[in-house]
């Protein structure tokens, strides 16, 4: 095979892997949108918050140490222990569920029946709040997240692909991060679990009922408020997974919350209401972005990754406003 083709292949593969990461965030959006019709802008910040909490628990940071020190003039930052990764993950999950419960109790309950734009704004408010809260709780410095996921390139793959290349060409093998492969596997597992959960459990069925029709679901005795707590908890869980993956990839820092913005075009492509759509949309955006950077980027000065996805989504919208897998939009007066 010629090196050009191998480069192409490598770009596509890496694009697919990045796409999976986008899909992870988009999944959380879709879950909440389906169940409550809320466009949850805070999903990215939730991922950041989950990752911060995980690292904080794992390294035994004292929550709010900054604030406490500022008020009481004390000087302590760490409890002095390190928790095993598994315990920290469970602890973070508990925090995310508690967060879901509180958010429903304090905010969502009062905003029932408001217009979607108001709910959307509330989640932007939540995003700001969580961002400040997370920084206040755990500090704003960049942290490394390590729970034992393998990372770095694979020598085996590099060796194999080098042999594929044409004799005498200067191709040094494919570079694919092991972390990305793990992320892809996790994403597949996550989708499987979520699908099974929503198809074969009573709670899952209730979730689907609520997604279909709020009022009908309520009339057969499904508690909307419980469902919302559950959905936000699941979204918190998905955020945690996304936070772990992105955190392990690029460190836990503020920019993590910006991946939420990257997930938006994914949603548009896939449709707001479709879980498979989130996955496929993520893959398309991931591949498209990388290929565009490789082939189109040089002509316009590079760094087009930032907006390319949006423009793709925009053009796509003109032809299919409901997304790839979204429900058909029917309008009545």
């Amino acid at each position: 095979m010629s090196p050009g083709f191998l480069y192409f292949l490598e770009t596509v593969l890496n694009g697919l892997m990045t796409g999976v990461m986008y899909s992870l965030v988009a999944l959380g959006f879709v879950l909440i949108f389906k169940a409550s019709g809320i466009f949850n802008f805070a999903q990215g910040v939730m991922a950041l918050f989950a990752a911060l909490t995980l690292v904080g628990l794992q390294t035994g940071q004292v929550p709010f140490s900054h604030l406490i020190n500022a008020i009481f003039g004390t000087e302590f930052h760490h409890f002095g222990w390190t928790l095993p990764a598994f315990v920290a993950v469970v602890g973070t999950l508990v925090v995310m569920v508690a967060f879901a419960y509180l958010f429903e109790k304090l905010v969502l309950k009062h905003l029932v029946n408001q217009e979607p734009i108001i709910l959307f704004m509330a989640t932007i408010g939540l995003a700001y709040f969580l961002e400040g809260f997370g920084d206040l709780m755990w500090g704003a410095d960049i942290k490394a997240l390590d729970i034992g996921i393998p990372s770095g390139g694979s020598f085996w793959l590099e060796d194999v692909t080098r042999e594929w290349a044409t004799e005498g060409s200067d191709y040094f093998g494919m570079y694919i991060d092991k972390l990305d492969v793990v992320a892809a596997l996790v994403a597949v597992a996550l989708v499987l679990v979520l699908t099974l959960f929503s198809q074969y459990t009573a709670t899952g069925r209730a979730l689907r009922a609520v997604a279909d029709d709020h009022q009908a679901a309520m009339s057969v005795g499904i508690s909307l408020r419980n469902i919302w707590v559950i959905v936000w908890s699941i979204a918190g869980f998905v955020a945690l997974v996304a936070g772990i993956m992105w955190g392990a990839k690029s460190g836990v820092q503020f920019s993590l919350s910006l991946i939420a913005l990257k997930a938006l075009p994914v949603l548009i492509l896939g449709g707001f209401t479709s879980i498979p759509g989130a996955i496929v949309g993520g893959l398309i955006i991931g591949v498209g972005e990388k290929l565009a950077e490789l082939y189109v980027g040089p002509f316009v000065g590079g760094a087009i990754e930032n907006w390319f996805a949006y423009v793709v989504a925009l053009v796509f919208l003109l032809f299919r406003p409901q997304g790839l897998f979204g429900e058909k939009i029917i309008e009545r007066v």
Partner: protein
Amino acid sequence: MLYREAGDFKTTYVADMQTFPIRGERILFWLFVAFCFAVVPFFITGYWEKSILVPFLVWSMIALGLNILTGYCGQVSLGTGGFMAVGAFACYKLTTAFPELNIVLVIILSGAVTAGVGMLFGLPSLRIKGFYLAVATLAAQFFLVWCFNKFGWFYNYSASGQISMPTRTLFGVAVTGPDAPPWATYLVSLTFVFVFAWVARNLTRGRLGRSWMAMRDMDIAAQIMGISPFNAKLSAFAISSFYVGMGGAMFFAIYLGAAEVTEAFGIDKSFDALFMIIIGGLGSILGSFLGAAFIVVFPVFLKNVMVGGLGWSTDLAAHVEIMTVGALIIFFLIVEPHGLAQIWRLTKEKLRLWPFPY
């Protein structure tokens, strides 16, 4: 209350459409305007100008623009920061290419340029609605900022990629640049905002404004009534962008003086503008001002309390600030989703009957 109306005695449409139906209110309003124009300039200090009054006026202009689009026409836009950047860069290019051009004209022309760009990015709104449109406007935000960052022509190939405003004068007094006296920049901003708020008020209660509102309330019904969505939506995008562009030009030329595009016109600016109109009140001219005042003054106040009052470090204060702003937004949405303007309206309603509510 100093004034109140005794009943509803309107007999003509003209009386019904009045902005200030009560004489007392009218007098108070003009007194307030006179105070702003004739008294404040004599007492204004550099601190008040730089950190409160001028940013408030500039943001009011931007909030007005966004309110026309989102509040009156119902099209959610997250591209405000990008359109502000268009205004700022148009202003920079115009004033450096034609140094003789009057600064007032430059700012208005920047608005016109932005209106064109806004219409271009408003085209998708003809096909898509709601959140889909919001995401589509994000494309404008990212694309425009990237554009101004990438192509040297926009920032005259300056080494730092920054644009900085040269000194421009109006009636012999510097209004931009480092030497501009506080009262001059204040008066220029105030005049702009006053004139264009008046225009906006009259636009929104006229034929155009009513077609926007019909579009917002139910687009299909509006179409059946003979309102062209093409005209209504694109005119909303154009006029809104005109305001936002002028706001962006003032933001850069009068307020900041020098700007770096990714920092000055990032996505957070889009959100700030959106917060302003939500907190102030969607579809309300007064709301744009109240919201702008809130979002501009509140962080200054918080910072003074925490850094000045309690002696906390600035990064800690920044975290608490962003958290409080977020919490307050949620609080406002829960307590009064129609914003401060609605609270003002309700207060007036109550006061009308006070102290004998039955």
